[in-house]
Every structure is written in C-alpha cells, then in structure tokens.
C-alpha cells in the first residue's frame, strides 16, 4: 500500500481524509436510528479512525455497526465508512479475540458440515423452544433469531454427479457460485437458478467452493476469511481469467466476490481482480440478457401481488433493482418495492442475543408494511434477509429467480405439445 493509492482513495482508512463531517452518513444509518448504543457511522468511522493505530485498539461501539454499507453509499465525499469500520472491528478482534459464538456462527461451512448429516435432529433442535432457550443462554444465539432448517443433502452433493464441461466457451458457459444458503439450506433455489440459466442457453458449471467468507468478514475474523477467500479464488480465478462469468444467487456472496476481497481483505492479485470483474448477480445477468434481447421471455402469467425487498447488499452492487425489471416481464405479476432500507438481519448480526432486539427495531417498519398488504409470500435477493423477514412476519420469502423459474415451468406445462411440434419441425426442416 503506497500513499499514492491514498490519493485515489482506494484504501478505506485513507478515504477518511475526505470526511467533512457533514453528517449525511448518520442520517441514513438504520442502526443509529434505533439505538443509542451505536454512536453512528461518522463517529465510529472517520472520527474514531484518527485515534486508531495498530496494534492497540480502543474500540467497542464499532462492533454495533451492522455493515449494511448505507453510510458508504450516501457519503458525498466518497469516504469508505463501512469498510473502515469493518477493518477496525477486525483489529479489535485481532487484539482481543472473538467469542466462540461468533467464530461458530461465522463458519457456515462448518455448520453445514455438522448440520446437514443430522438434519432431522438439527432441525428438531432449531424448532425446540427449550433447546433454543438453552442455545441463547449457553451459546448466545437469540432464541427467536432466524435460523433456517438444514437441507437433507448439500447442494454440492446433489450436483456431484453432474458433468458439465466448459468446451462451449465463456459466451455460452457460466460458473455458478451458489454460496452457503443454497448449499446447506435452500437447495431448491440452486436447482431453479440452474434451470433458468440453462433455459437461456447456458451450460452451468458448479465448481467445488467454500463459503464466500462474508460472515467471517463481518465478525472481524479476517485471517480465517482470507483462507476461505483464497480457496475460492484459486478455483474461480482460473475461470475468470479465461473470461468465464461467475453467477451468484446471493447479493451478499456476490458483493463479497465483487468488492470485499479487495476492500476488506486486501486480496489484490490477478485472480482476485478477475473474479471481481467477472462476477454477476443472477438478476443482473438476466436483466442484461433482456436488454440485449437475448432473454427467453416465454413467461407464463403469475396473477398475484408480490412484495419485494431489495437487500442492503444489493444497493452496494450499484445495479439498480434488476429483480423488479424481471418481475415486470411476468404477465399478471404485480410486484411492489418495500421502499424500506434494512430488515435488520445483516447476516449474522440479528442472530446474536445482544443484537436481536436492535435488528428487530431496524426491520420494524418493513415488517409492518409487509403485514399491511398481505401476500402469500415475498421476494428478496439475500438469504439472511429472507430468513429474518420470515421469522419476524411469518411470510415465506423466496429469491426472485424462483418466480422466474416458476413462470417458465408454467409456460412449459401449458405449451408442452407446441414445443414438441416446434422441435419436430426444426428437425424436419434441418433434413
């Protein structure tokens, strides 16, 4: 890191030079709004930064930052406030260590490895009020926190027998980074994603992969996060450097690959740069196909209301709300945007005993709005937000691409005969 980079403001802690203390960040912070325990992004960011010098950390309250990143988005001066805070937390953890709870909930790979083989038992435990109460007391995971039941089989295991080669080249082949949510909890989302992409003419490779490391990053566990990230980069970097695109179905994992490996973990090698450049959110990719008139728009109607909540991480991508654009292609689907900033979950934040109430307060407005206009289920691009919303409102939440998949399936069901005839026709024509 040279100082010349500081002038370019790539390095988060240097960007604090630009703070003019205008307070805009404080006005958008969802956490500072609901609790006096958190003095706000200006304080824990650029202000406290002036009093930080490794290896000794003076911080405590920075740990209340949920990492939603709104402060960074809102700053008119380009200060990387959330990133600065994340690094400060990491230094705090490096100096004072981390709780066993944080290390466990941040290690989703481990949780999946332990939970999936014993899914029935584990899921029973998750539903048991007494066990959850004990879990809160002993481990520090709030008894009402949103924990999704484990899948019976990991997504990796489910696709282990698939053999997809990359010989159709980068234009027709995609690399799917499914993330932990799909791997251990929501495997059907993974299947839907693959089917939607395949329907649009792509071969989809699902390489072996680790957790993207975001939970570790947001718990300040940088060394562990770097190890995970490096493992992913070796696999993904090779594809990315050859021009293959990486697709994610989680705006959180996606943003981690796009930005946080470099911004938080200082991973700045050719692999990291290629992966950052080549990573796409699935809705972003489908939207892009549509813009270039390449999206298969044979979509059957879904005649219903659909509440949609754009997660904080999506805003970090800076890609608008591509899911809303896609919903507009489905006949009859009346999607509406929650227009609420944050559900409060913020990854593992809302799970913690001492943070749960804050997370509930942050999401309160959103929950109220969802209850006001009831719908059978709702859409959101990030898993922990979906789980938080469901746990707090009892409204099931699904990824936007699941509605696309559903619409495709209905179209297919309605047009079975037609498709067969068309295919027969092409074959005839070809001879």
């Amino acid at each position, binding site marked *: *890191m*040279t*100082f*010349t*980079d*500081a*002038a370019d403001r790539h390095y988060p802690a*240097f960007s*604090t*030079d*630009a*703070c*003019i*203390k*205008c307070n805009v960040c404080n006005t958008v912070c969802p956490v500072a709004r609901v609790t*006096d*325990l*958190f*003095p*706000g992004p*200006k*304080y*824990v960011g650029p*202000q*406290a*930064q*002036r*009093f*930080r*010098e490794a290896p*000794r*950390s*003076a*911080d*405590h*309250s920075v740990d209340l930052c949920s990492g939603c990143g709104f402060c960074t988005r809102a700053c008119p*001066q380009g200060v990387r406030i959330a990133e600065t805070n994340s690094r400060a937390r990491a230094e705090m953890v490096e100096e004072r260590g981390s709780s066993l709870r944080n290390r466990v909930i941040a290690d989703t790979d481990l949780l999946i490895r332990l939970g999936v083989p014993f899914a029935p038992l584990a899921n029973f435990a998750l539903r048991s009020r007494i066990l959850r109460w004990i879990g809160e007391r002993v481990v520090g995971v709030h008894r009402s926190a949103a924990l999704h039941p484990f899948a019976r089989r990991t997504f990796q295991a489910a696709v282990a027998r698939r053999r997809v080669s990359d010989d159709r080249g980068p234009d027709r082949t995609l690399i799917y980074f499914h993330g932990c949510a799909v791997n251990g909890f929501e495997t059907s989302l993974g299947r839907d994603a693959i089917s939607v992409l395949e329907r649009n003419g792509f071969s989809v490779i699902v390489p072996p992969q680790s957790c993207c490391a975001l939970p570790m990053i947001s718990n300040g566990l940088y060394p562990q996060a770097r190890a995970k990230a490096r493992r992913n980069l070796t696999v993904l970097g090779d594809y990315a450097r050859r021009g293959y695109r990486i697709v994610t179905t989680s705006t959180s994992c996606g943003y981690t690959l796009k930005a946080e490996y470099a911004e938080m973990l200082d991973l700045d090698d050719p692999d990291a740069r290629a992966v950052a450049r080549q990573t796409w959110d699935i809705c972003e990719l489908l939207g892009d196909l549509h813009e270039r008139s390449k999206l298969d728009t044979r979509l059957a109607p879904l005649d219903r209301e659909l509440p949609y909540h754009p997660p904080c991480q999506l805003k970090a991508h800076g890609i608008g709300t591509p899911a809303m654009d896609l919903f507009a292609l489905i006949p009859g689907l009346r999607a509406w945007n929650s227009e609420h900033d944050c559900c409060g979950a913020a990854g593992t934040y809302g799970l913690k005993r001492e943070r749960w109430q804050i997370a509930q307060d942050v999401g309160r407005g959103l929950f109220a709005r969802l209850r006001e206009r009831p719908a059978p289920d709702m859409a959101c691009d990030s898993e922990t937000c979906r789980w938080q919303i469901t746990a707090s409102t009892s409204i099931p939440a699904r990824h936007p691409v699941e509605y696309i998949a559903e619409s495709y399936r209905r179209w297919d069901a309605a047009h079975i005969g037609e498709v067969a005839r068309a295919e027969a026709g092409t074959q005839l024509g070809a001879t």
Partner: protein
Amino acid sequence: MPDVDVVVIGGGATGAGVLRDLAMRGLRAVLVERADFGSGTSGRYHGLLHSGARYVVHDPESARDCARENAVIRRIAPACLELTGGYFVATPDDPLDYAERFVPACAAAGVEVDEVSPAALLDAEPLLNRRIWRAFSVADASLEPWELIDANLASARAHGAEAWRYTRLTRIVTGEDGAVAGVELEAGRTGERRTIACSAVVNAAGAWAGQVAALAGARLGMRPGKGAMLVMNRRLTSAVVNRLAPAGDGDILVPVHTVSILGTTDVEVADPDDVRVTDEEVRALLADGDRLVPGLSGSRVVRAYAGCRPLYDEADVDAAHESREISRAHHVVDHGQRDGIRGLWSIVGGKLTTYRLMAEQTVDAVAGALGVAAACRTADEVLPGSEEGRSYWLGERLAALEAEGGGDADLVCECEIITSGQLQAELDAHPDSTLDDLRRATRLGMGPCQGAFCTCRAAALLSDRQGMGLNGSATPDPNAALLAFLAERVRGTRAIAWGDQLAELWLEAGVYRGTLAVDTIGAAGNGSQDGAPSHAEP
C-alpha cells in the same frame, strides 16, 4: 521589602521551567505572560523532543544538551510524551556521504543511534518513500507543550509561586543604582495596571526577549527565525521521521496526537508576531514532504501555522548569516555585567527540549546573585500528572469515551473527542477562558473541521455559564468568543484552502452564514471583539 524575589517574563516552556526551579529553591517568584500560557513559540513549535541527532554534525553542543535532556524529560514528564521513537532516513535526494559524518558525530555527542534496514523501516512505516536507502533509529518523541507548561506551573504553584496569564510587562523599573527594583504590569483584558517590587527579573520572553530587554533600556540582539509547518489530516507515520541530511525545509514529520506535522521553513523576520505562512513556504514544504512520503502533497492538509525561533545573535553583527546557521545552544545573558542593569537576566536561544536545562542554568545565576545556595532539583522530581510514569497513547480519548459506553451525545468537538464535561471542568478551573484558551487546554477545534462544528457548541456552553453567572469577569461575550475563534481557525486554513479542506470551509460557511446567520451578530451590536472579520469566508 520587595513583593517577590523574582519576576519571570514569559509563560512559554522556558519561563514555566524557570518559575518551577525558582520556587523549588525557595525563592518567591511570580510569572507574567501577556497572553495565554504557551501561546508563544512553545505553542507553535514542531512538537519534537529531540534525540539530539539533528544537530550532531553542525551544532554538537546543542546535540549533547538535547541528548541529556531527552533522558531527563522521559523521567520527569512521561505524561507529556508519546514515545514514538524516530528515524533518520536517506532518500535518493540526500547526500551520499552524510551518514559517514553522522554516525561518528552521534557517538561523539552521546546521541544513541541504531542502523535499521530500509526493509524493516518500510515494514513499520509503510507510507514512507520506498526508495529510502539508509535509516537509523533514534530516541525522538512527541512532546505536548501545553501539558508540559501546565505541569511546570502546577509544580511551581505547589511550591508557592504564582503565574498570571493575560498580564503584560510594560516596563522594568530600575533604581538609581541601576539595579532592578520592580516591574510595571498591565492586565491584557481589563487594562488594569499594577507595579510589583522585586529583586530580580528573568526575561524568558523567547523571540520577544529583545523587546522585553528594551523595556529596561537594555539591548539584546535577537534574530527571530520564522518556521512554518503544515498539519496533515491524520498520522502518516507512527514515528518521527527526519531526513538524513543537513537541515532543510519540510524535512521532519512528527506525529502529534491525531495528526502529522510537516516542517519547517526558516525565514528571518523583523517582528516575532509576524507568523503569516506564505504560499512559497507551503509549496516548499509540500515538495519536501513528497520526498519523505510520496503523495503527501495530494493528501489533506488541515492547517498551516508558524512560530518564531528565539534565535540569539551573540555577535549581533554578521547579518549575512542564514539564520539556520546560528547556534541554537542557549545563552544566559547577565545584563548586570553587560549593560549595568543588575538583577536582570535574559535566557535566549535553545529549544523546547532543553527548556529545563536552560531554566536550571538561569536560576543558578539568579540564585547565586541573591545568595541562595539551594541546588536544582528539577531533574529529579517528577512533574505533577506524571507520577504514574505512563506516557500518552493515541487511543486514550477514544478508549475513555468507549469505556463510558461510547455515544457522542455529549461531544462538543467531534474531531478531537472532547466532551462538554471536559470543557466544563476546564472552565470551572479557569472561568475567564476564551475558546482559544480552551483549545490549548483540550485541543478544541484542532481537527479536520477546524471549528466548523464545535465553535457554536462551545460558545453555547459559554453562554449557558454566563446565564448562570459562572463566567469570569474577563470572559468575552459568547458571541464575540464565537466570532474570534472562527476567525482564528479560518485564518490558519487560508494558505492551504484547496481540495477537501476547501470543501470543509464551504460547509462551514454554509453553517455559520447560511444557517446561523453570524453576519448579523455584529449588526446586533454584540460582536465587539477585535472587529472580528468575515469569519467563514473560504
């Protein structure tokens, strides 16, 4: 019967040190300072407790003094120090052979140096020039002047002395025998005059020593050397960094609390109160700064300021000299011997690092003349506040606030983390403080926003206290205090108003002119202070 034995003129480090030493030797003494304590050069210096290494080649006498006093200050005033350590580094622009002279000269002067590999240096200080090819570590440290002065005054008071600020010496009265008989003083804020009878006067007025000597009709050849410095928005290095070369302009970078200070220039000036920073100086400093930390000139500067070196030209003739070449070792001038004014001594030259030694030698002379045999104990007795032996740590204020549960509801100055409780305590102790006095006591307004956000809050505090009848009789009206402080803060940003700092100034202008309409304060007839100008004008 004189009112006191000795009157000390000047409330900088030297005067405070002299007062303490006098008091500890049992002399009745009073110190007068025309403005706030530490508002002269001691409050406008570079902030460095020298190891001595900077002077080994050209001024070994100063080097030896610094090395000795460095060890003493570490012992008696750790609370005023941040033990940053320091480096001398050779950049590609520095002479190839300087190290060959530097190392033996250090040994000769008793200055400890250790060679460190450039790789190890860059590891510790990643922002430094990657092309540094040689480096030595030394015992430099960052020295907080106002705390040091306060501690000396507190110790002096504990030994029975008094110190009065905002009290100007207007005349030194001599008897028919030509000996000092007393001093005439004027209270700066009320204009009240008084005379004090004394047996001796110590002129510790630094760069103003010539003016003070003239008040007794004595002539003292002072050649004030102005030095400008730039305050960088944050710390660029955690240790002091000096160039391994003969002294130049922007060749030292000192971490001072939350900032780094780059300096200094050296320009001879006629009037020590002339501390304007010119564009030329700013450019020279930035150009040199880039050699130490490449890209420094593109990063944020929050303020430019200057101080005047109390340089003494003994020969008082050779005006062709560059002022950096004049010896900085100090001189105790006995005006009885020199000018026939018995009982008047001037202490000139020197450095902040050697303030105690200067005081000791001065008081040796004064006490001897007054027939007091007590020996100096200032090097042995630890200063008030330093008893625990702990030195300053950058995270201190943040840690203290965080320990209280964080939260910034009570913060007046956000940049420097100052709570209203801290300011109230300071005001309780000194009810007639101006905002600038509070600044020296607490660092109020010294951060990146340069008072944009704290000035109105601090003025509101003064206003509340005024309502409760808690302000001293000499406290300026809160509105006037606000205007004066803003004007002073903005003044220091004139020479560096570009980029982010300019954005800050515009925001400040918006806050004070747009939202708070300070321009109407004068019209309402409240803002009578020094015709406080168009404050927040970028």
